[in-house]
């Protein structure tokens, strides 16, 4: 029973700098929502306003239907996991987890039951007597999560919880967080700058930039149907290629004219959608994974492109190849078997059914 509603939320600091510029967001009960964006986009500020750690300049925040603007953090029934864990260094793991319940005067037996249960879920039962300094980074993060779980709050707030962990542990803890959410099913707001974390964890991803929400949607929708150039470039790694192009009418069909006299046919299914923009300069957006080797058998909706590789990065399961097209960086994710060599022309095909066109003036995806 805890949806979170943000209505016209503004956060302005002294001197008039606006960190958050009037955002609206509805987070449903049991939902896992990830706020993602580059540093300074306002995602952490938004989370801290939900927590009550930052005051709201204007707008309303409601948790479970109650406006909480003037309610202090302790009465909002939320739990938060911080980037640097924020464990109490003088308390044992058990006391760290029990602290919130003790302050709320829970009976001892109930505290014990909840801590034991959370420790079991997080697999930290053997660590309960230890002090935080005797724990590894991953274990500390588990304790921080345990401290949130025992409270059984309406909402979990995560502020970049995995940023202090090394790459391998981060992947492991990511799975762990998802597992915990599937077990306890509490409404969760999670902030990260890592789009992979956002994509893998979220029911819905909220992409923020410069204090506004660029797009809200399930991960697949953001990947396949980005609304703006920012979302298109932010979601996906390596990021989408943006190549300046001109959309031309050619006897009932549309064609894209790229630098170096590359001409690509726009699929017939997109003709109606792009028709109004014929004759205009656009940005042609295509993900590196949609530029592939031309040895494919099914070549429907593809167009040939020949480019000279500048840098080749073999990754094992795939090979990243970087080109330069009239000054624009272009990259492709190719099968490792592709015979790519620096400087040698390489025949590729662009999967035009995965293409995007962006209006260069408004940065909106057409």
């Amino acid at each position: 029973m805890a949806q979170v509603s943000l209505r016209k939320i503004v956060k302005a600091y002294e001197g008039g700098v606006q960190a958050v510029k009037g955002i609206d967001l509805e987070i449903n009960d049991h939902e896992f929502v990830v706020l993602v964006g580059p540093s300074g986009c306002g995602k952490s500020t938004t989370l801290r306003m939900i927590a009550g750690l930052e005051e709201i300049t204007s707008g309303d925040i409601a948790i479970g239907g109650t406006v909480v603007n003037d309610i202090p953090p302790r009465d909002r029934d939320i739990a938060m996991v911080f980037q640097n864990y924020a464990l109490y260094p003088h308390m044992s793991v058990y006391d760290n987890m029990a602290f919130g319940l003790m302050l709320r005067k829970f009976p001892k037996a109930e505290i014990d039951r909840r801590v034991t249960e959370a420790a079991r879920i997080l697999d930290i039962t053997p660590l309960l007597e230890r002090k935080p300094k005797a724990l590894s980074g991953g274990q500390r993060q588990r304790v921080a999560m345990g401290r949130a779980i025992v409270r059984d709050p309406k909402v979990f707030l995560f502020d970049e919880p995995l940023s202090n962990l090394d790459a391998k542990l981060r992947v492991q803890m990511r799975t762990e967080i998802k597992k915990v959410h599937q077990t306890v099913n509490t409404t969760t707001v999670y902030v990260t700058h890592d789009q992979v974390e956002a994509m893998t964890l979220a029911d819905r991803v909220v992409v923020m930039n410069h204090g506004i929400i660029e797009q809200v949607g399930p991960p697949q929708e953001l990947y396949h149907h980005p609304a703006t150039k920012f979302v298109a470039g932010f979601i996906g790694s390596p990021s989408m290629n943006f190549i300046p192009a001109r959309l031309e009418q050619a006897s009932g069909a549309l064609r894209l004219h790229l630098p170096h006299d590359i001409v690509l046919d726009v699929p017939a299914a997109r003709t109606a959608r792009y028709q109004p923009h014929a004759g205009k300069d656009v940005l042609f957006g295509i993900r590196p994974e949609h530029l592939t080797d031309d040895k494919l058998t099914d070549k429907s909706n593809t167009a040939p492109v020949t480019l000279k590789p500048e840098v080749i990065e073999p990754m094992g399961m795939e090979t990243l190849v970087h080109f330069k097209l009239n000054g624009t960086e272009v990259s492709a994710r190719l099968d490792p078997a592709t015979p790519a060599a620096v400087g040698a022309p390489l025949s590729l095909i662009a999967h035009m059914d995965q293409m995007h066109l962006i209006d260069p003036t408004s940065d909106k995806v057409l």
Partner: protein
Amino acid sequence: MSAAAATNRDMPSLYGTAGSLRSERRWALIWAYISLIFSAIILLTPPVYMLITSLKTSAEIADQKGNPWIVRNPTLDNYWELITNSLFQGFFINSVIVTVVVVALTMVISILAAFALARMRFWGSQVLATGVFLTYLVPDTLLFIPLYQIVGGLGLLNSIWGLVLVYPTLTVPFCTWIMIGYFASIPKELDEAALIDGATWPQMLMKIFIPVALPGIIAATIFAFTVSWAAFVYPTAFITTPDQMPLTIGVVSQLVRGDVFVWGQITAGALLAALPPVIVYAFLMDYYIAGLTAGATKG
């Protein structure tokens, strides 16, 4: 690894530098030892001479012949006479009462002040924090004249309670300053976590800040203890009746009878007076250093 090895082979001069670094370090150590030994001699000579003197009889002290650094007939009479002297016992008790009350007062005031100045953002808190430190820079040799008026006005001249009132002007600013630095080194997320966990500000102070900042609190306590135990200017100015005197002035004023200096008892008294701080420092030195340097290293 191999790349690093290749770099070393190509740059043999690196080994030369390493050799000279080692010799530089040796010279630095030699100079460090020389200067440390020199300052230890300067600092330790007076207490050692006092110890030697305190073990002599008055006759031996007055005797001009022989080496004054050697005790010919060691005796503990000076100590025994002092310990059984009710006046000296009174000085000791006065010092203990004043110090305990001043330390307690100081810690309560400076912990609360530092917590507010370090953590509760309010208008002017930065200026106030600097102001607290600036008051510490005014020397007591300058302050005792106006304070004499105040203490006198309150009718607390010739009373240890007058000292209890004025010593915090020396201890509170510095202790507050130490505690501000220590509290500031505690990550902000810790209080935010406590706020979300349901703590009120007083609970946060009692259950999180005080336990976490214990090394800093001990450092501040030692400082307050040292200052009030060793204070000299204020009791000299405000106390003239022997039964209200603390050790520092009692020893020098009451053990000098007319123009007769009872050197054996004076030195024994001074050494006994120095004993409590020595004991405190010996046990809590590590905390003291940790507390004083915390703000500097953790930023």
